[in-house]
């Protein structure tokens, strides 16, 4: 099988309320992706949350290069997780984790 090109995104999740756990955040992105673009696209996106600091709200996610724009759009569209209002801020995109500095 041909290998797909990956993209890594450094982000900050601003919040107004309680801390968001890694699992909650990951599920919220999956749900948003599924709702906006459907099951097949969500499966092909190969979205994965590499690292996430729940205290600072910073982290790195990875996905298929072709799906990057839609994965980010899905994350930006999340307005709340549980009872906490959030604002997703994409920071930097790279083809390697090292490239994010």
């Amino acid at each position: 099988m041909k290998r797909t090109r990956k993209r890594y995104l450094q982000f900050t999740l601003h919040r107004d309320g309680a801390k968001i756990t890694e699992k909650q955040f990951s599920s919220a992105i999956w749900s948003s992706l599924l709702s906006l673009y459907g099951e097949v696209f969500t499966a092909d996106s190969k979205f994965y949350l590499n690292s996430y600091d729940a205290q600072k709200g910073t982290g790195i996610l990875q996905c298929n290069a072709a799906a990057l724009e839609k994965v980010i759009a899905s994350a930006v569209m999340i307005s709340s997780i549980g009872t906490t209002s959030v604002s997703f801020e994409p920071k930097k995109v790279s083809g390697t984790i090292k490239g994010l500095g």
Partner: protein
Amino acid sequence: MPIDLNVRIPSSEGLDEFEDMAGKLGITGIAPSINLDKPVVVSGKGLVLYSRANLQGKRIGSLRKELGLLRRRAVIVAFPLAGVETSNWAAEDQRVDLRTLGEDNIGSTLKDSTATMAKHSGTALEIQFAAILQSTGLNRSRVLKSFREAARTARDAGMKIVLSSGASHPIHMRSPMAMTYIGFMLGMNRVDSREAVFDTPQRIVERNERKLSSEFVGPGVEIVKRGGNLEKD
């Protein structure tokens, strides 16, 4: 210099929180819905506040009067997309900066002819994305349909597009980079989306600041130097 041209601050007490959030997100200017002392105010935290007026009139006569009163006081004058007659009037009038599409008028359509007129008068289509954030499921689908159709009509006619938050709470604001991705979702390409977030709002503000300055006389006529009469007796 990214500017959010529509922030619905409920009262002046809430301004502080919006300033903090704008600072965190890298937004350098906002146009709040509250009354400001001057058309342009720089806050203590370095954020530039531009006065914004939303035209409320229902008929052309009352709108003309309202516009005459507000144009010299506000940096941004906006009018929602509404009926054909008022839409065409607003699209032709160079004093109107933005035709707004947001949560208050979802379902309003932008006609090709209106968009073409707006292109010639320099009026831009403003899309407030708060409506997308606050809806889910089928409702969000309806909002997206309305916004994507309007964006496509504007783009095809060459009318400029502005993306603004329409946020009534600081956490509803989005960073400029996040806003460009909302632009992609509305069918814009990378160039158009960046223009809708970074360039067009900046250009509208600069144009109107020039118009509001005491050196401005009329389109193409400005006072470049003041001084007394040199031919003294």
